[in-house]
C-alpha cells in the first residue's frame, strides 16, 4: 500500500519522490486556519498536527503546512533512494549540478514560502470552491541566492484544495529540489516522445485510411486507422501537459481521458488482430478482453498503473491470438507476435510512467508491427489475387478449349455427320443445340461473374448436346436458386463435365443444384448422379477443379469454401462464399 501511495505522488506531481525521503523528513506539520505569520521559519509549530506526505486534506478549507528540509551530511543515515537528491545534488557537493530551484506539481492552490520568503504562488487560495482559483499544474521556481547555502530549510505552504477533483479525500504532495537549468531542459524535452507519437500515429492513421479507400477495402486497415487515431489522441493528451499549461483542476479529467482512450485503443487493437487473422469466436475473445480491462481499471487507484494493467490485459489476449495465427502460418503473423512479446517484456515491471520513452516505443513498435503484419497480409492477398487472375485466365482458355477443342468438336461433328445420314431433321436440331451452347459460352467467356440464369442456360445447352451424342438423357434440376444471383462463369458447367466423366449416370437421371443462404453469402450443393466410375473415388484435383477453385478465388478472394464427397445418390460438391469483402477464410 505504501508503494502505491508513493506512486500517487508521482501521478500528481509528475516527479520521482522517494518514499524514504518522506520518512526521513519527520517534520511535516499541518494547521487549519490562515495566518501570514506562520510562514516565519522560527514560528513555533509544536502544536501543529504532524502528517505524512500522503495526508494533505482536500476540500477542507484553508490550511498551512510547514516542512523542515535538512541538508544531509555524509554521516546522515540515508534510506533508499532519498540519498540521490540530497547528498549528490545539494550545493557544495562535488560533481553535481547545484540545487538552485524547487519543482512542484500542484493539484491545489497555494502560496509557498522558503525560510520565510515567499517564492511562488499557484492560483488563489480560497475558503471555498467559489473563491479558490486553480493555478497551473507544474511550477519551477529559483531559490534566491541568499537561501541556497543554508544547512536547513523551512518550507511553509499556505494552501486550499477545493479544486482537487480526484475521488480521494487526501492527496500527496512533493517538492523537489532541482537544478534550474537542468530542469528547464528536462521539461523542454518531455513532450518530444509524445509529440513524435502524435505525428507518427496520425500519419499511420491517414496512411491506413488511404490504403483502405484506394487500395484494399480490408476491415483490418480501417481498424489500424482507428487504433492509430486513438493513439494520436492518447499521445496528444500526454503532450498537453507541456504544450498547454492547463489549470490544475484539469489534471484529473485529463488522466481519466488518457486511461479511457488507452482502453479503447486496446480494445480496437485486439479487434484488429482478431479481424486480421480471421480468428473465430471474435465476440468471445472481445468479451474476455472486456473482463480483463475492467479488472485492469480496478487493479490500482494509480492511473499510471491502470494504464500499465490495461496494456497487460490487451497483450495477454493478443498473445494467444497472434500465437494461433503464427501456428496457422498466416502471413505477417510472426511480426505481430514479435510485437506482442516485446511489449509484454516492456510492461512486465511496474516501473513505467507516461514519460518513459520505452512506453512510447513499446506502443509505437507494437502498432507498427501489427501494421506491417496487415501489410504482409495485403501483399499476400494481392499476390494470391494476381495468381488467381492468371490462373483464371489460363482456366478460361482451358474452358474455351474444352468446348472448342478438337476432341469435343470433332466428336460432336462425327455424331452430327452420322445424324445427317440417319435423320437429317434431327441433325438440324443437333446443330441448333450446339450453336446454343457456343452462343451461351461466347456471352460469358470474358465475364468475372454472370447471373445464375445464364450459367444454367449454358449447362442445359451442354447437356442437350451431350444427350444427343450419347443417347442418354441427363437433366438438370434446381432448388431454391435465385436466377439473378451472380456466380463465376462455367462454374456449374465444369461440375457437370466432371460428373459426366466420373459418374455413371443412368439415362433419365438429373444433376441437382440446391441453393441456400449462408450468413452474408451463399451456399450451393451440387449433386452429380450415379456411381463413381473409379473404385478409389474421384481424383483430388484435375483441370476442372483447378478451374473452379481459381474462379472462386478470383471472385471471392479468401472467403470461399469448397468440399466434395460421395453420397448415396451421387457425388456432392458444396461451394460457399461470403458476399461482402472481409478478411480470412480459405478453402
Amino acid at each position, binding site marked *: 500500500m505504501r508503494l502505491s501511495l508513493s506512486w500517487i505522488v508521482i501521478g500528481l506531481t509528475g516527479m520521482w519522490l522517494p518514499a524514504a525521503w518522506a520518512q526521513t523528513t519527520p517534520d511535516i506539520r499541518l494547521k487549519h486556519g490562515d495566518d501570514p505569520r506562520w510562514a516565519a521559519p522560527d514560528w513555533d509549530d509544536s502544536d501543529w498536527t504532524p502528517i505524512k506526505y500522503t495526508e494533505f486534506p482536500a476540500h477542507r478549507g484553508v490550511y498551512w503546512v510547514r516542512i523542515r528540509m535538512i541538508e544531509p551530511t555524509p554521516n546522515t543515515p540515508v534510506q533508499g533512494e532519498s540519498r540521490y537528491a540530497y547528498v549528490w545534488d545539494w550545493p557544495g557537493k562535488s560533481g553535481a549540478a547545484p540545487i538552485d530551484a524547487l519543482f512542484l506539481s500542484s493539484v491545489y492552490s497555494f502560496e509557498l514560502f522558503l525560510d520565510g520568503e515567499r517564492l511562488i504562488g499557484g492560483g488563489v487560495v480560497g475558503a471555498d470552491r467559489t473563491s479558490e482559483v486553480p493555478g497551473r499544474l507544474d511550477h519551477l521556481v529559483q531559490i534566491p541566492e541568499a537561501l541556497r547555502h543554508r544547512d536547513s530549510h523551512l518550507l511553509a505552504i499556505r494552501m486550499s484544495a477545493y479544486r482537487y477533483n480526484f475521488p480521494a479525500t487526501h492527496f500527496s504532495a512533493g517538492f523537489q529540489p532541482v537544478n534550474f537549468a537542468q530542469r528547464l531542459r528536462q521539461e523542454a524535452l518531455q513532450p518530444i516522445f509524445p509529440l513524435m507519437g502524435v505525428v507518427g500515429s496520425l500519419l499511420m492513421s491517414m496512411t491506413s485510411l488511404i490504403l483502405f479507400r484506394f487500395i484494399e477495402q480490408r476491415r483490418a486497415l480501417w481498424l489500424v486507422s482507428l487504433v492509430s487515431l486513438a493513439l494520436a489522441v492518447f499521445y496528444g493528451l500526454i503532450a498537453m501537459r507541456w504544450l498547454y499549461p492547463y489549470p490544475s483542476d484539469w489534471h484529473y479529467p485529463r488522466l481519466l481521458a488518457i486511461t479511457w482512450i488507452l482502453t479503447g485503443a486496446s480494445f480496437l487493437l485486439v479487434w484488429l488482430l482478431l479481424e486480421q487473422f480471421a480468428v473465430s469466436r471474435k465476440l468471445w475473445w472481445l468479451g474476455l478482453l472486456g473482463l480483463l480491462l475492467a479488472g485492469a481499471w480496478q487493479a490500482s487507484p494509480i492511473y499510471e498503473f491502470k494504464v500499465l494493467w490495461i496494456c497487460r490485459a490487451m497483450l495477454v489476449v493478443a498473445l494467444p491470438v497472434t500465437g494461433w495465427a503464427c501456428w496457422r502460418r498466416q502471413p505477417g503473423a510472426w511480426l505481430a507476435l514479435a510485437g506482442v512479446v516485446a511489449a509484454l517484456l516492456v510492461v512486465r515491471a511496474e516501473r513505467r510512467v507516461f514519460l518513459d520513452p520505452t512506453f512510447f516505443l513499446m506502443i509505437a513498435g507494437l502498432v507498427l508491427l501489427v501494421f506491417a503484419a496487415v501489410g504482409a497480409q495485403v501483399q499476400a492477398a494481392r499476390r494470391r489475387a494476381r495468381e488467381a487472375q492468371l490462373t483464371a485466365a489460363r482456366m478460361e482458355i482451358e474452358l474455351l478449349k474444352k468446348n472448342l477443342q*478438337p*476432341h469435343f468438336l*470433332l*466428336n460432336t*461433328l*462425327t*455424331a452430327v*455427320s452420322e445424324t445427317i445420314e440417319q435423320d437429317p431433321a434431327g441433325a438440324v436440331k443437333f446443330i441448333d443445340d450446339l450453336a446454343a451452347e457456343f452462343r451461351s459460352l461466347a456471352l460469358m467467356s470474358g465475364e468475372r461473374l454472370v447471373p445464375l440464369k445464364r450459367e444454367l442456360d449454358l449447362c442445359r445447352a451442354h447437356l442437350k448436346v451431350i444427350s444427343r451424342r450419347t*443417347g442418354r438423357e441427363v437433366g438438370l434440376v434446381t432448388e431454391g436458386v435465385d436466377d439473378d444471383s451472380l456466380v463465376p462463369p462455367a462454374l456449374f458447367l465444369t461440375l457437370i463435365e466432371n460428373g459426366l*466423366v466420373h459418374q455413371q449416370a443412368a439415362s433419365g437421371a438429373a444433376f441437382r443444384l440446391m441453393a441456400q443462404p449462408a450468413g452474408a453469402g451463399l451456399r450451393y450443393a451440387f449433386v452429380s448422379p450415379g456411381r463413381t466410375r473409379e473404385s478409389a473415388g474421384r481424383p483430388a484435383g484435375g483441370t476442372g477443379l483447378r478451374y473452379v477453385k481459381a474462379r472462386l478465388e478470383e471472385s471471392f478472394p479468401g472467403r470461399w469454401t469448397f468440399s466434395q464427397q460421395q453420397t448415396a445418390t451421387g457425388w456432392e460438391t458444396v461451394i460457399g462464399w461470403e458476399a461482402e469483402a472481409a478478411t480470412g477464410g480459405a478453402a
Partner: protein
Amino acid sequence: MKLLLIEDEPLVAQRLERFCREILAGGLEKLHSATTFDQAGAWLAENPVDVALLDLNLEGQDGMELLKRSVASSFHTIIVSANTDRALEAFQYGVMDFVPKPFTRERLAQALERVRSPGGRAAFAARNLAVKKAGRVELVAIDDVVYVQGAGNYSELVLAGGRRELHDKTLEKLETVLPADFERIHKSYLVRMSAVKALHSAEGSHYEAELKNGVCLPIGRARYKELREKLQ
C-alpha cells in the same frame, strides 16, 4: 476378318459399324462393339480378333494404356479418335493407322486396306514395340532390335546384347509395323539390314547372313539375290 470396335458414343459406333460392313462386305467374319475398356478387355480375353478399332478417349478416360496392351497383342490396332495430337505417339507404339474424327468411309477403307493387303504396312513405322511381361506391358525400343525370329503364333525379338523378348504378334504382322530397314530374309527371320555384316553362300544352295555381332542367320533362297543387291 474379325473386328472389335471400342467406342463409347453410340452415333459414332453406328457409323463405324456401318462403314466397316460396307467396306469389308463378305470379308467381315465377325464384328463386336464395346463401349468401355473393360468390355473390350473381356471380349479380347475370350475371342480372337484381327483388328481393333480403338477410340483413345472413352468417357473421359485415357485409352493409351489399352493402346499399349492392344499393340502388344496379336491383332492389329487402328485408332479412330478426335485426339489427333496423340497420333504420333500412337504410331510410335505400332498402330497400323490413325483415322481422325470425323471420318469418311474412304478414309476408313484406306486404314482397313493396310491390314487386308498382303504387302500392307503401317502408315508410320513404330519406334517401340510393346511386349507383355508378367501381366504388364513393357516397351522395347525398335532401335535395340537386331532381328526377329518367328515362333509359330508368336515372335521373338532379339535385342543388341542378346536379350530376347517374346511378342504376341506373328512375324507377318510385325513386319507391317516395323521400319523399312527390317527385311524378311527367311520365312522365320526379320533382320535389320544395318546389322548385317556380310552374306555368305554355302554348299548346297544354302545362304547365310552374318551379323555384326557374329550371329549367322539363314537366308531364303528366293531372297538372296535381292538382299545382296540391297547390301551393295
